């Protein structure tokens, strides 16, 4: 496998390819790109509990579940057959900050000191995995979309509510990463 495939892809290759997902889904089936709705369809399919928000025919949106299943398979294929396995290059300032919290050098996509079965037994890991996941699921649905739905699909279709949502995603991220996360990482 040539190294340009095995090495991480630069932004100017990956970004346009991600953007092309928008016309791809529209052309193969009139589907607007977005991922967080899959979480809602799982709720509607598995535990609707008479909640009006989950009373709809989720089978009409089953394409979304097929899509996210594919994303998981794609993740497997890329990690096992299309990667060199080299450690990711991390900005030295971030590495230094993380090591001050006892988060070891980067090996994979996520630091195992924070996101692993062992980490679940620590206060910090528990809060970050369970609490962080909860915020992702609650927030995306409250906002009506995630990075793919609002930031990519919504902005592509020039929807100003999506611009508001995207700015709030970024604002929330900046606040968390710089003002709150340092305290969480110290736990």
């Amino acid at each position, binding site marked *: 496998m040539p190294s340009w495939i095995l090495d*991480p*892809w630069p*932004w100017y290759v990956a*970004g*346009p*390819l*991600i953007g092309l*997902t*928008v016309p791809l889904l529209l052309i193969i*089936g009139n*589907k*607007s790109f977005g*991922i*967080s709705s899959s979480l*809602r369809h*799982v*709720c509607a399919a598995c535990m609707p509990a*008479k*909640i009006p*928000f989950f009373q709809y025919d989720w089978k009409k*949106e089953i394409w979304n579940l097929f*899509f*996210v299943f*594919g994303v*998981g*398979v*794609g*993740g*497997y*294929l*890329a990690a096992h057959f*299309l990667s060199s396995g080299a450690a990711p290059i991390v*900005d030295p300032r*971030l590495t230094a900050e993380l090591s001050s919290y006892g988060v070891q050098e980067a090996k994979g*996509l*996520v*630091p195992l000191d924070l996101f*692993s079965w062992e980490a*679940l037994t620590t206060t910090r890991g528990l809060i970050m*995995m*369970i609490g*962080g996941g909860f*915020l992702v*699921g609650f927030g995306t649905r*409250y*906002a*009506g979309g*995630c990075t793919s*739905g609002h930031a*990519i699909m919504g*902005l*592509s*279709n020039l929807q100003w*509510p999506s611009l*508001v949502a995207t*700015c*709030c*995603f970024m604002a929330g991220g900046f606040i968390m990463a*710089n003002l709150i996360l340092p305290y*969480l990482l110290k736990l």
Partner: protein
Amino acid sequence: MSMHENSERPYVSVPVDTDFEVRSTNAMCVNQSEIDEPIYTKWKYSVAGILFGIILIKSEVVSWYRIQEMFRLQSFHMFGVIGSAVVVGMLSVLLIKKFNVKTIDGEPIKLEDKKFNKGQIYGGLLFGFGWAITGACPGPLFAQIGSGALAVIVTLFSAIAGTWTYGLLRDRLPH
């Protein structure tokens, strides 16, 4: 439509055509197709998903470290990825509209306009918090699990629980 709801309130007729309305509430990605595709044709979306998953991993946008660098302004990578994706997406939608491009089944492509509500602000901020903590939005969660970070399944289940809780509290939240 829920059968239970019907049996509890026998005099309220359940309208049959509100399904799309409910489905498209608080959702960017909806099925705009009128065609009832047989289930085996849905695999084409899995193929699209596989391509998308490969791009997510290879571009490292599913890396917790890249997300931290983005929010600390230590790297341009994520801004470049999102920015160029939006530009390509915009051009694509523009061309699709200009040339009335149809789907492979010959259906006209439909795009719904989204209405503003305050949820985009409150929910957006809350999601931003979660994004910076987990380093993942919903798509990357699936890609991370596929790549072998199996413990992220816990984060995914928690995200599903978050979505469910939103559904439960929806009427009481400011929108």
